[in-house]
């Protein structure tokens, strides 16, 4: 399976936008999985599958915080890869909710793993970019020494280039690896909800541990009781 050139271009464009939105500029949170995967799925032809993967990935990285100078996983490109692969995954879909659908278990596992790998691989690469800003700083200091604000601003905006290129490269690499993985995966028709629901559970648990650090066990007990009660009914 593969995408046509127009879809590739749009997905790379979305990768660029989400890569920059995560930290470099705007930060409107279009880079968060819930939005980026949905948009990627829509571009690739199946918005419902992309959105379902976005719901799953949103919780996965909810505890990843950009504290100090430690970068996040590269969420935007990772979510674009996940959403696009969900849209092109082979086999029938199964309903996760009245409006969300997911692929079968094996394709879903592959696309989630590839997406998570892209996000985690992006973290050290972003760190490397952050460590190599010397030339931009020199350019800005020279401009400031000459009293030229335009040069300071140019040096500043040039910082967007490596971040954007990294985001697009990771999207391209993730899509190539992911589509190859989906092509060679064994065609075992198993219910994708076996993979989706545990991932949803750990993601929600991660998110909730943020607000209940010391009394997290209370939330855990409530979730267990509620989950079992609802499942029984």
């Amino acid at each position, binding site marked *: 399976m593969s995408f046509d050139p127009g879809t590739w271009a749009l997905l790379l464009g979305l990768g660029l936008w989400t890569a920059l939105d995560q*930290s*470099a*500029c*705007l*930060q*409107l*949170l279009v880079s*968060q999985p*819930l*939005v980026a995967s*949905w948009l990627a799925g829509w571009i690739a032809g199946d*918005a*419902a599958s992309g*959105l379902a993967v976005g*719901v799953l990935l*949103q*919780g996965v990285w*909810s505890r*990843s*915080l950009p504290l100090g100078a430690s970068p996040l996983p590269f969420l935007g490109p990772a979510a674009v890869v996940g959403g696009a692969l969900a849209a092109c995954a082979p086999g*029938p879909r199964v309903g996760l*909710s009245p*409006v*969300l659908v997911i692929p079968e278990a094996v394709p879903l596992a592959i696309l*989630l793993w590839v997406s*998570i790998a892209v996000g985690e691989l992006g973290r050290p690469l972003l*760190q490397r970019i952050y460590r190599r*800003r010397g030339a*931009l*700083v020199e350019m*800005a200091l020279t401009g400031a020494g000459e009293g030229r*604000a335009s040069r300071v*601003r140019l040096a*500043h*905006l040039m*910082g967007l280039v490596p971040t954007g290129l990294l985001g697009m490269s990771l999207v391209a690499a993730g899509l190539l690896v992911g589509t190859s993985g989906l092509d060679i995966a064994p065609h075992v*028709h*198993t219910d994708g*909800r*076996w*993979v989706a*629901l*545990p*991932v*949803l*559970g*750990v993601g*929600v*648990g991660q*998110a*909730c*541990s*943020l*607000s*209940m650090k010391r009394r*997290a*066990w209370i939330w855990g007990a409530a*979730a267990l009781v509620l989950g*079992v009660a*609802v499942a029984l009914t």
Partner: protein
Amino acid sequence: MSARVSRLDLTRIAFWNLFLQASYGTGRRQALGIAAAMASIRGLWSTPEDRRAFLLRHLEPMNTNPVMAGPLLGAMARLEERAAGGDAEAVSRMVHMRRVLEGPLAATGDALFWAGLRPLAGLAGSVIAWQCGALGPIVFVVLYNAVHLPVRLGGVFWGHAKAERVLELMRARWVMRLRVAVRWGIPVFGLCLVALGASVEALPRWTVAPAAVAGVFLGSRSLVRGGLLAGGAIMVGLILSAVFSPSLP
């Protein structure tokens, strides 16, 4: 030269604040972004020497939460205005204020926006997406930016009005209310999502609650990174799917 910062100047600072971290680096952190934003009021200084000194002092290392940088930039603009107007102490007070406030504002902003509003909006958006599809991501973006953009952009104007009293931001009533909303909203929406997952009409519904307990237990102790934990959950799910649902009808 008039030593006044106009509303247009503040609008320009607010615009550049959206690009604050374009050149973020481990050395000077957000310094280039701060200098690029503050360059909007370089007209306060008439001589080349003063402009050089102005640009160089804003290229000093600085790191704070990008949302909370708005009020700080506004306060710095006010002190630059005073310095250009003849207040000999204003520049040193501005440098001191910047050093003193960057840490507390970063801590408040990270807790409020990254660890608070973002997961809250994410869970609320996920619950809505579960039932209504595309409305979920839209609600997520609107909910987050309804707080984010006023602080980041409007904060520049607010900070300019408050000057050195910009620390009042951390005791503002809306900040307290947002903290309460985050404290209660995250668990409530989280439980909603657990209930929705457990209501799926298939055997995998039994996996949601135990997985949520594992997530909250490991997450609260920072034992495992989210990606690794999800990778493990995928593996467990694959094994369970092979055992319990060898094939779909």
